[in-house]
């Protein structure tokens, strides 16, 4: 599970109000490089819940990866920014698409129900009495 998926995933357990964002408790994660697509990031960024993304990166022990507040779009999409090591767009791309959480759990913010992540697959299955 990558953090882009985490950014949209919410708990639907009975008793949850929004069930979002799920608190990430990750035991194990790996990174895999993928090509940066600036147009894709540009289209996606307005839909991203920045605070949830930042919280996820911090939960992975990466406090420096993203700033608390989203940098202005002029800065993120500045000419040539994609080619600069450590630029905002490179960091955002890395956070969303290059980190794969392998083992850990997702915790519902409202009910504390824990959804385990096993072999990279979050188990969002609910029992009958939780629906």
């Amino acid at each position, binding site marked *: 599970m990558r953090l*882009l998926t985490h950014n949209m995933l919410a708990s639907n357990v009975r008793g949850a109000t929004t069930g979002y964002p799920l608190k990430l408790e990750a035991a194990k994660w790996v990174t895999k490089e993928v090509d940066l697509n600036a147009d894709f990031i540009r289209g996606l960024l307005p*839909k991203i819940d920045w605070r949830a993304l930042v919280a996820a990166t911090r939960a992975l022990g990466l406090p420096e990866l993203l700033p608390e507040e989203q940098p202005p779009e002029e800065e993120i999409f500045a000419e040539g920014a994609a080619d600069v090591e450590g630029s905002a767009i490179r960091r955002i791309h890395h956070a969303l698409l290059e980190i794969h959480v392998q083992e850990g759990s997702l915790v519902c913010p409202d009910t504390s129900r824990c959804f385990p992540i096993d072999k990279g697959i979050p188990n*969002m*299955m609910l029992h009958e009495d939780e629906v």
Partner: protein
Amino acid sequence: MPSPRQLGWPTRTGPKNAAPPRSQGRQCLAASPRLAGSKSSTTSTPRRPSCARLAPEQRRRRRAGEEMKLKQLEGLLGGLTQFPAPKVELEQYPTGPHIASRMLYTAENSFNDITGKVVADFGCGCGTLAVASALLDAEHVIGIDVDPQSLELAQENAADLELDIDLIWSDIKNLNLKGFHIDTVVMNPPFGTRKKGADMEFLSMGLKVASQAVYSLHKTSTRERIKKAALRDFNAASAEVLCELRYDLPQSYKFHKKREVDIAVDLWRFVPNARRSS
């Protein structure tokens, strides 16, 4: 680069609202105006090179910005491992490489709904449509299924082709997705013959989370019901049958008396209500 016509695959210039004619004879795809020419690829089965050899080729193709050809896509999908023991209650009919490749190829080449998009495959099973989306360079692909064995298969299938797809173990009806990150939903949902209403649960959720389009297969016999539900109950902006297919179902289950069951299936494209598009 060959034109779509040379590939035997028409572009969006065909008569848009022409009703697809009923198919005649036993071929996988009915001869609808949009899909004319698809027959050619049913007559020959190109030899499929091993996945291990094709992954670097795919990387090269991506770097060179070359388009995936329909036959290449079908060939790669033909190499996927299918359900070893389909589960009746989940209506696990595999999406064959012929249908899957045409479904995704149409979604990309006629509507630009796959490449560079966030695509979700509902009820992904062994991951055919998810893998097809990734092969057509979707930027992020998520497969969702209720069956853990299927997800494992999907993971292996993607890994064999060196593709990254995210997987979620969840019931579609209990899915809770926020924020409309997903552009396109592709699915081969249960037809709802074993569990009534299962097809509607999928369609309803698809139209709830997709911001751009939903591609789905439904029995032709349910066409009116699907259209009404999509437009009236699930608030779709449009619901269009792109073509009628013959779903060549091998005898998957004991209750199938005949050796092969031929079901007429519609390939639909639904556009969700515009308020979602950002």
